[in-house]
């Protein structure tokens, strides 16, 4: 498919359309950030700033512990807040957490819920505009990464990527950097697959037992049980 790069101020659609990362003026829709436009008129941002929405799953780092709750750094200008009354466990400074955004208001205060602490590992930044490419269609990219690097990997909407310490971390960092560079190209999963085979010599890693990401879609009841333990 033919893709061209559009810059802020380029017309991307006739009429006033509600498209993310675009704005409307005088019966036209214009790009607000650098993005790609294919010949069917789909506009996808290449760079943007993450803006929080309710029900987004985000990964954060606990930066402050207070009696009322925890302050969480979310790879953006505002910090998130976990009210202590929502919690059945204690967090400590520097913990990685996976949570859902419960409330956002117009001045940018963010309340988080459904908190889960992530095991030891590493959190790296990834551009939030390119997160869908890192996950892949039906998580194909993540499954591929786990197959070769072992361990577990989780991606938040805010662009933080958590990698378990059991994974082949240097390999993952290299591949994630590559995905970041080639995010707008098609056939990315095949390219990454070839790259992983070359790097590892085709050797697949052992899957992790009971990976945290497998529990991501469990219901709230089960999660609460886990907290009680």
């Amino acid at each position, binding site marked *: 498919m033919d893709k061209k*790069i559009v*810059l*802020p*101020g*380029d*017309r991307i659609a006739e009429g006033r359309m509600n498209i993310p*990362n675009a*704005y409307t*003026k005088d019966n036209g829709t*214009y790009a*607000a*950030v*650098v993005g790609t436009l294919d010949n069917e008129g789909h506009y996808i*941002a*290449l*760079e*943007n*700033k993450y*803006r929080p929405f309710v029900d987004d799953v985000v990964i954060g780092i606990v930066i402050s512990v207070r009696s009322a709750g925890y302050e969480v750094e979310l790879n953006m*200008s*505002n910090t998130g807040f976990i009210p202590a009354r929502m919690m059945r466990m204690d967090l400590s400074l520097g913990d990685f957490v996976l949570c859902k955004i419960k409330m956002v208001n*117009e*001045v*940018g205060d963010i309340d988080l819920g459904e908190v889960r602490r992530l095991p030891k590992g590493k959190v790296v930044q990834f*551009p939030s*505009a390119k997160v869908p490419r890192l996950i892949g269609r039906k998580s194909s990219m993540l499954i591929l990464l786990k197959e070769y690097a072992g361990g577990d990997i989780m991606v938040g909407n805010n662009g933080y990527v958590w990698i378990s310490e059991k994974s082949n971390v240097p390999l993952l960092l290299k591949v994630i950097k590559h995905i*970041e*560079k*080639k*995010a*707008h190209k098609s056939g990315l999963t095949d390219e990454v697959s070839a790259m992983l085979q070359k790097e590892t010599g085709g050797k697949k890693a052992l899957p992790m037992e009971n990976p945290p990401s497998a529990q991501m879609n469990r219901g709230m009841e089960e999660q609460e049980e886990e907290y009680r333990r």
Partner: protein
Amino acid sequence: MAANEEVKLFVNGKRIDGRGADEMRAVRIEVGIIPEADGSAFIEWGGNKIVCGVYGPRECIPKHDASPYHAIVKCRYMMSPFASAEEHSKSGPSRRSTELSKVIREVFENLIISEKFPNTQIDVYIDVLQAEGGTRTASVTAAAVALANAGIPMKDMVSAVAIGKADGHILLDLGKLEDNFGESDTPVALSNRDKKILLLQMDGLLTKDEIKKVIEMAESACGKLHEKQADALKKFYEHGENEEFKL
């Protein structure tokens, strides 16, 4: 130089550096040269070399500067002490750099869609490494590219060029000598899509007709500059990085 009143800036259709009246100096733009910044750009425009880095939107410090309605734009233009032959021997804020920071900030305050980021600030740092006249216009051109690279939503791209008068001729893209010894220097910044004037200053005097001609020249020159900006950004996003960058 005051003793040498006979210096001619425009002889036989040629300028002091050999250009024609409506010829620009060579422009080279590079994107993504500072890995740690959210967005960055480098511009080489004749003898000017300027680095621009953009950070944010991030927490606003000091807090009393913050607005609950929109992000505020902070711009710091600085000419390095070694940037040119005279005057700028000291680093730090001066009358000149404070003025330039303000006019460049106002260009981008009009372009950035800042309502989406309340209580934050967007920092634009501009460092002039080497100066040869027209640094404010080159800075605006580079900062627009750096902001696009940072993914900050903008209504439009902007580019700027200085046009002036020397020896009675209107000249495009003034160099240092034409700026210092000419009759007028008029930097113009125009948005790309609707050609709105975002910066217009005038040093010296021009007649009404001359101003009209200046704006006309600026429109065609800014179109060419926008192509350079677009090429630089497209090249960067094709490769996803800028590895072979050289100062």
